[in-house]
Structure formats: structure tokens, C-alpha cells
């Protein structure tokens, strides 16, 4: 155990994981309450296309993925605003387009399939120092953006029309939220993988909603549950020699089930 704690790999994994947890825990509450829980899932498909494009063009895959994901996030909003579409249709369109583009790019240039596959399931224990710094930077951006606009975001999430009349710049904040989500997704790709990254945005926030009486409590509980899930998940993966991403999601699910049962007993 001491050996594990002292290892640079573990320390980097925990650092990156904790800052990712902070971003996911805070953002997730707003996404779930805005009924946009699946945006993380949709954007992760766009991020997949970005990774593939990065490999094809011999550019830094994470950077290309970030650029494409930010673009995809803005496109989702644009289609939603202009297209008069129902519910998650815009998300479905962009998500499918991302996946199709990713598959097409893979078929164009062979040889990087395995490397790309590692992003499907993530590898938190292979996090580089640069990625740790990215996680820290991202968490700072998320915390500052949400703190500065905290009350306006609550207002528009709770009562969008009244918020608009009160002068809350809802469209600007919609953009900010999707862009922050896109950044979080790209970081999450490396840590927990394309297939599971959205779970970190949805499950801790949903668990927090079961036990909280006000918004502040919900934000704190969601962040705490994210921390617990990431740290326990990494530790369990070491202990059981199992994939960290799957362990993190299983711990999140256990926390969620616990809060659900706790709520029913009340």
C-alpha cells in the first residue's frame, strides 16, 4: 500500500482524478437539472472523431479532440435554437455524426486502432504530467465560471423565462455550459474513456439530488461523491487488478443506489 501511495503513477492518477471529479461533480448538477444529462455522452462521440482526426493528421489527438468537441458543443446549441427540434434530437444528430466521422477516419488510415481503443476505455494510470496540469487548469476554469455565474445559473435552471426577463444572459450561459462540458469530456476521455465519461457527469449529481435539501448542499454532495468514486475506484482497480474506469463507475453506482435506498427509507 505504501509502495502504491509513493508511486508517481498513482499520485498523478489521483491528482488528475480529483480535479476531474471536481469539474464533473459541479457541472453534473446543472446538466442533470437542465435535463441535459446525455450531452456528455453525445459529446464524447464527437471527441472520438477528434481523436481519430488527430491521429490521421499526425497532430496531438487530445488537442484536435478538444477543438472538435468545442465545435460540436456549439453546433448542438445552434441546431437546437434554429431547428425547432424536439428534446435531445440535436444531440442525437451531432453525436451520430461524430461517431460516423470517427469510424470513417479509422478506416482511412490503419495502424492506430489500438491506440484509439485505449481512449474507448480510458487509462487513468497512464496519465502524463501535462494531463494532470490540464485537469487542474480545467477545474479552475470550471470553478471560477460556475462561481461567478452561480446565482444566474440557478435562476435560469429553475425558471428560465423569469430569468430571461430579469436580465440573465441565458444564451451566453448556455454556451458557457456546453463549452465547459466539452472540455471536461476531453479530459475524461483519457481518464475513464469515451464510453464511461458521461457517467461521471450524471451519477454523482443524481446521487446528490437524492439527499440534498438545497442547491448548495447538492453541489457539495455531488463533488464529494465524485471524489469518493474516483479515489475508491482507483484503489479498487489496484486491489482487484481490474480496469479503473469500470471500478470508478461501479463505485458511483453503489453510492447512487445507497442514496436511493436511504431516500426510500425516510
Amino acid at each position, binding site marked *: 500500500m505504501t509502495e502504491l501511495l509513493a508511486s508517481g503513477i498513482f499520485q498523478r492518477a489521483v491528482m488528475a482524478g480529483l480535479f476531474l471529479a471536481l469539474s464533473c461533480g459541479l457541472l453534473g448538477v446543472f446538466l442533470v437539472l437542465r435535463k441535459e444529462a446525455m450531452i456528455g455522452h453525445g459529446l464524447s462521440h464527437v471527441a472520438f472523431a477528434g481523436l481519430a482526426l488527430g491521429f490521421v493528421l499526425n497532430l496531438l489527438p487530445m488537442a484536435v479532440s478538444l477543438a472538435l468537441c468545442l465545435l460540436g458543443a456549439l453546433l448542438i446549441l445552434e441546431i437546437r435554437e434554429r431547428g425547432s427540434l424536439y428534446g435531445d434530437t440535436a444531440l442525437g444528430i451531432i453525436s451520430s455524426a461524430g461517431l460516423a466521422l470517427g469510424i470513417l477516419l479509422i478506416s482511412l488510415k490503419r495502424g492506430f486502432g489500438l491506440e484509439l481503443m485505449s481512449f474507448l476505455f480510458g487509462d487513468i494510470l497512464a496519465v502524463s504530467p501535462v494531463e494532470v496540469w490540464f485537469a487542474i487548469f480545467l477545474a479552475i476554469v470550471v470553478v471560477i465560471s460556475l462561481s461567478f455565474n452561480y*446565482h444566474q445559473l440557478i*435562476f435560469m435552471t429553475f425558471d428560465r423565462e423569469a430569468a430571461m426577463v430579469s436580465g440573465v444572459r441565458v444564451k451566453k450561459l448556455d454556451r458557457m455550459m456546453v463549452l465547459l462540458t466539452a472540455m471536461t469530456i476531453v479530459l475524461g476521455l483519457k481518464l475513464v474513456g469515451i464510453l464511461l465519461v458521461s457517467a461521471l457527469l450524471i451519477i454523482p449529481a443524481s446521487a446528490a439530488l437524492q439527499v440534498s435539501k438545497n442547491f448548495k448542499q447538492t453541489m457539495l454532495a455531488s463533488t464529494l461523491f465524485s471524489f469518493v468514486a474516483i479515489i475508491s475506484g482507483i484503489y479498487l482497480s489496484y486491489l482487484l487488478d481490474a480496469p479503473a474506469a469500470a471500478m470508478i463507475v461501479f463505485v458511483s453506482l453503489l453510492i447512487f443506489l445507497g442514496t436511493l435506498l436511504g431516500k426510500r427509507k425516510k
Partner: protein
Amino acid sequence: MIELEEIIRIEKVSFNYDSSPALENINLTIYRGDFLAVIGPNGSGKTTLLKIMVGLLKPASGQVVLFGQEIEKFRDWHKIGYIQQKATNFDPNFPISVEEVIASSLNSSPEVRKKFRASQKQKIIQVLSTVGLEQLGPRPINSLSGGQQQRVLIARALVTQPEILLLDEPTTGVDLKAQEEFYDLLGSLNKQHNLTIVLVTHDFGIVNMHVTKVACLNQKLIYHGQHEEFCSSSAVQEFLKGGHHLVSHQHW
């Protein structure tokens, strides 16, 4: 003669949903201190008109002037309090306390935040006392009755010290006693604090004793004037044909 101060002026406003007209050539001015009831049958354009007044819908033609400024240039949104139709039909699982609901309005824009920075807690306590909910600040809003929730929304609107309050069918789903108390509160805000109020309602009977003016709408503005004159006008006959009533509900 005292010059009346204009708060909202609607000039030749028309609005269509796709190709079907919802409002035709509406001219209407609301003055400081008015308690205006906007009445009319279902689909007459009442909600549409209110949404145009607060900038949520853009008219097909005509213009809206708020506090002497064209709506496109208007920025002092804290002067306007708005409560939409079915406002209490919010997500029952939304985790928010009464204080947080009101605080969100106190921080709705950088200008408003700056204005009320020094005394936010005090303002929240004060406004809760105005609506008679002094003790309920920390309670989750979803644990309150429909009538209490309505009062919280009024408190949220009042906390930025608006000069006009616009409400769209605010008491839908609220029991009769709570409705009467709610309209008594609006009446007292209008009389004692000179707050201008615009109220869209289908139930004129219950607000009858508080309003000072009436606008009767059916795509066109059929009547706009003093409440007493409305009751003796020919417009009232058209209104009554729709099964509406002018006297308050009887209750036991």
C-alpha cells in the same frame, strides 16, 4: 391636472403564430400605479401580449416602449417583475431553498448584484416578511403549499424593488382561500407601495375588487379603461358570453 407617468406603452402591436393572427393592432398604455386586469376568452392573446410586454416574444409589427425606452434598448430589467403562467409547476425534485430562489433574483445581472451587494441577507428577510413567510427562508420550496410557493415567487420578483409586476394566471392550481389572500397581497402592494400591476386572468371575479383598470382582449383590444366603466360598458356583455363572471366566488 396630474400628469400620469407611462410605464409600458404598446403601439400598433400585432403578432402571429405561423400564419394565424394572435394579436391585431393593439394600442395600450400602462401608467404608474395602475392595477390592470387583462381578461378575455381562451386563445384571446392575453399571455402573448404579456410576453411581448416583457420581451419574451417579438411582435410581427408595432413597438413596445418600457419606461420611455424602446424595448430593444431597455436594460433596467430589475424594474420589471414577472411571474409566468404555471410558474409553480416547477420540477418537484429541484433542490432549492426559499432563500436561494430569492437570492438568484438579487444576482440576476452584474448591475443588480452591485446594487444590492451590501444587504442581500437583510433584503431577503425583509421581502419574506412582506409576503408573510418570515420563518420559511431555509425551507425547500417544494415542501411549501401552492399558495406559499406563489408568495415566494412574488418575493423573488419584489426583492429587486421593481416598479411594475406582471403576472400570468398566477393562482392556477391554488385553493380559493390562498387565492384570495394572494390577491389581497397584490392589492396592498398596489395601494400601499404604489406598485404597478398587470395581471392576466380568466377569473375576473376574484380580482374584481382590487383592480383599477381592465383590458378586455380577443385578438383585438375590445376595451381598455377604468374598472367601474367596464362593468357598465357593452364590452362586459361580450365578456360574460364566454361564461365568465364579475362577482367573486362564493365560499363557505
